[in-house]
């Protein structure tokens, strides 16, 4: 299983590529993606050293355009991606069917990955997107292997990429969530330093927290994804780089265990030893990056 890590700067790319990532991905300020501008590269030239570094090591770089893109921005998005392709970028991560249709019409071919934000939960939805020219699918974070077999063993020959949900799980479907969140707005981040989906809510006389599956279940899910044939594990771009490095190192350990062929029971046991409280990721969303 290959590991894909999100990066916000050249230094972060250097770190992950030197420490076992097979691929990195990032955003550019000029390309719509689901991170704040400060978490993106400034432009294609800013990315050039990362492309050179990755390719010297035989590794890959992808660019995220994983939001819906305004029609007026389609031509410029195409020009930017074509320039990045010429510079050696290996592909783009998208979710917009209209943009994919535009690229197809313009005969622009690239290694396109369907973002988790496209909410592709079934094989018919995959068919809808696949005909637009995909090479890889990132499964929704809220889809579990018990429901994903037909997507992983898909008839389009697409690679599949999964999150290590045991370590990082979104409570609600990201692209459809309108609760205030530090991920989506600079303004809200002053008020909401944490995910609002992790807040305690008064519910009658009780305290309610939006439920998450238990860690044992999620470690088991990662094990099952590997054995179903998911080829890539994704460590998402995270504002706090120390937290992302921690996640990345834990994913590496877990992938090593899987590649050793440990049993499901042992994998869950070891997973819980690696991170006993994996879901407590909340307060780590404050921006801390490796600049450069």
């Amino acid at each position: 299983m290959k590991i894909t890590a999100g990066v916000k700067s050249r230094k972060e790319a250097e770190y992950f590529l030197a420490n076992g990532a097979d691929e990195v991905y990032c955003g550019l300020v000029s390309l719509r993606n689901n991170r704040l501008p400060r978490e993106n590269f400034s432009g294609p030239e800013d990315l050039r050293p990362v492309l050179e570094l990755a390719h010297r090591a035989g590794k890959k770089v992808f660019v995220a355009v994983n939001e819906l893109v305004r029609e007026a921005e389609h031509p410029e998005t195409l020009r930017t991606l074509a320039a990045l392709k010429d510079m050696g970028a290996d592909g783009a991560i998208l979710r917009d069917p209209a943009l994919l249709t535009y690229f197809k019409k313009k005969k622009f071919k690239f290694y396109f990955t369907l973002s988790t934000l496209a909410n592709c939960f079934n094989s018919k939805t995959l068919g809808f997107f696949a005909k637009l020219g995909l090479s890889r699918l990132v499964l929704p974070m809220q889809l579990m292997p018990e429901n994903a077999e037909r997507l992983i063993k898909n008839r389009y020959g697409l690679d599949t990429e999964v999150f290590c949900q045991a370590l990082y799980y979104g409570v609600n479907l990201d692209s459809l969530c309108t609760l205030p969140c530090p991920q989506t707005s600079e303004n809200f981040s002053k008020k909401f330093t944490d995910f609002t989906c992790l807040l305690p809510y008064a519910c009658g006389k009780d305290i309610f927290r939006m439920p998450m599956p238990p860690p044992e279940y999620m470690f088991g899910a990662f094990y099952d994804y590997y054995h179903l044939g998911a080829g890539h594990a994704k460590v998402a771009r995270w504002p706090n780089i120390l937290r992302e490095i921690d996640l990345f190192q834990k994913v590496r350990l877990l992938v090593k265990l899987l590649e050793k062929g440990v049993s499901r029971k042992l994998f869950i046991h070891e997973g819980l030893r690696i991170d006993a409280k994996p879901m407590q990721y909340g307060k780590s969303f404050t921006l801390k990056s490796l600049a450069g």
Partner: protein
Amino acid sequence: MEKVLLLSPWQAEQAGPKALAGFDAVMTGSEFCQNELPSAKAAAALAGAAGNFILATPLMTDKALGGWERFVRKNRSLLAEVVVNDWGFAGFLRTQRGLKISAGRLMMRELALLAPAWAKDFIRRHNILRGEADRPDLAEAAKRLGLGVSWHGGYVFRAVTTYCPFENHFRAACALSCAGRTLKLTNRQLGQDLFLAANAYFSKQTKKVPASAARQVFRPAGSGPA
């Protein structure tokens, strides 16, 4: 303005003709939870009593998809309209000739932001005639795209999960533990209460019915959002 009564499948099982009085159509199923497939018996009873029966459908996994497809095939003659939120299921509905489709509240959130020319082509090819809206911008988008506006008063959709908050699982089958339950959730930071019904979170609707609305969707008095 056309009036539609939205019932959960659980309410649909119990609704008598009296409950439907004054409405032009009844809508059941769910835009959010794949396990809220109504029974064929309830569908037949509702269609008979209300005249127009609308099926609301959610995002769905492969395991749930088959059940929803079977329901549509078997009850095709009862269906006045289907509300769709899943791109893949929309493709299936396209094969059901002549079936009227409405873009659901989740799909409208996408169509509102997608390139208009592409969205209009998608709408045409899938026989989508209406858009479900619970925010003014969605109503405006529906109008802009040439769709009839179907306005949901009462509550606004905020978030949806696939992990059942009432039964704690991801399965495409359940004991309907959410039936008849709405949890009011309060946190002062948020500034407004949330309401959990089935697997979705809502806040209270504060906007007036837009002038463009051709249809209004109501919930039974005292009932929760989903």
